[in-house]
């Protein structure tokens, strides 16, 4: 009748793919973290979350999916917080497990195989979205390309849990 799309996040070396409805950036390779392993505010420079690997999984009765994109409301998490998405979108075979020092900082996003640069994800807004997949997706299940997302914290950030921000996915279904 219609495709159902679920957001999946990859962890571990396998990888293990798990459906998520919310995401929390922290300094561990886990898809459903609690408030343990937060990103410490550095005394100089930046600390980073472990990068997150997301894709859409499509199930159900449909012919094809195209034009998979993602965008934000253009807001952001506030002073001293950056959230970047890798400029390149990747295939499943390019998965690279998140790495770093748990409890301190993840490795910067360009250490991910296939990611050479990153852009503030909040520059992608409705009408100016981040393209995730330009191919034609079919099958039950079908999968989109992967995007890599990472939060950075600088010395000017304030301590505490941040207010939630909403990311929106777009896809066309026939």
């Amino acid at each position, binding site marked *: *009748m219609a495709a159902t799309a679920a957001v999946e996040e990859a962890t571990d070396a396998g990888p293990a793919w798990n459906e998520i409805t919310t995401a929390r950036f922290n300094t561990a390779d886990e898809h459903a973290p609690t408030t343990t392993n937060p990103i410490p505010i550095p005394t100089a420079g930046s600390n980073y979350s472990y990068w997150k690997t997301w894709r859409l999984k499509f199930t159900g*009765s*449909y*012919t094809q999916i195209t034009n998979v994109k993602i965008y934000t409301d253009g807001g952001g998490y506030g002073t001293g917080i950056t959230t970047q998405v890798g400029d390149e979108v990747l295939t499943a075979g390019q998965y690279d497990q998140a790495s770093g020092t748990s409890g301190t900082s993840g490795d910067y996003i360009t250490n991910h195989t296939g990611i050479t640069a990153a852009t503030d994800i909040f520059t992608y807004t409705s009408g100016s979205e981040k393209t995730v997949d330009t191919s034609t997706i079919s099958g039950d299940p079908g999968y989109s390309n992967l995007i890599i997302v990472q939060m950075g914290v600088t010395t000017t950030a304030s301590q505490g849990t941040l207010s939630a921000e909403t990311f929106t*996915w*777009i*896809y066309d279904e026939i």
Partner: protein
Amino acid sequence: MEKIEVPIQGARVKIPEDNKLKYIWIAELEDEKCIPQFGEHGTETLFGSIQPLIDEGKVKAFHFVSTTPMSQHKVTVELDDETRPIIFRRHRQKMGDGARIMHAPGHEVQYCIGFQKTCGGQNSKSIMFIDEDGNVTLKNGD
């Protein structure tokens, strides 16, 4: 959802009880026959299965028809030898609990119908975007 049966363009359509679509498509063929997305027994025809008929130029019009029982809302695109139909649903799905479900909070759907035409070597597309309330916006391209 209440099960309804409505005759549309001579086609017998039965909307399945678990339907979540607010519009369904009906292909009107040159021989005055119709192929609805849901047939008289509620069985779905996937759009991809009628692609050969489109390629052969045997589809003369596409309709999007409201599945709301009391609505008569219908949007039609007439085709000719130079135009090809465009039909899709555009989903905007927020990350959040329950947003996987169509038309649930955090999941908006636009029903899109139009045509593509090559004119003077230039590719052009005109698409009507129908929102969940039935409002229609015509756009040149996508």
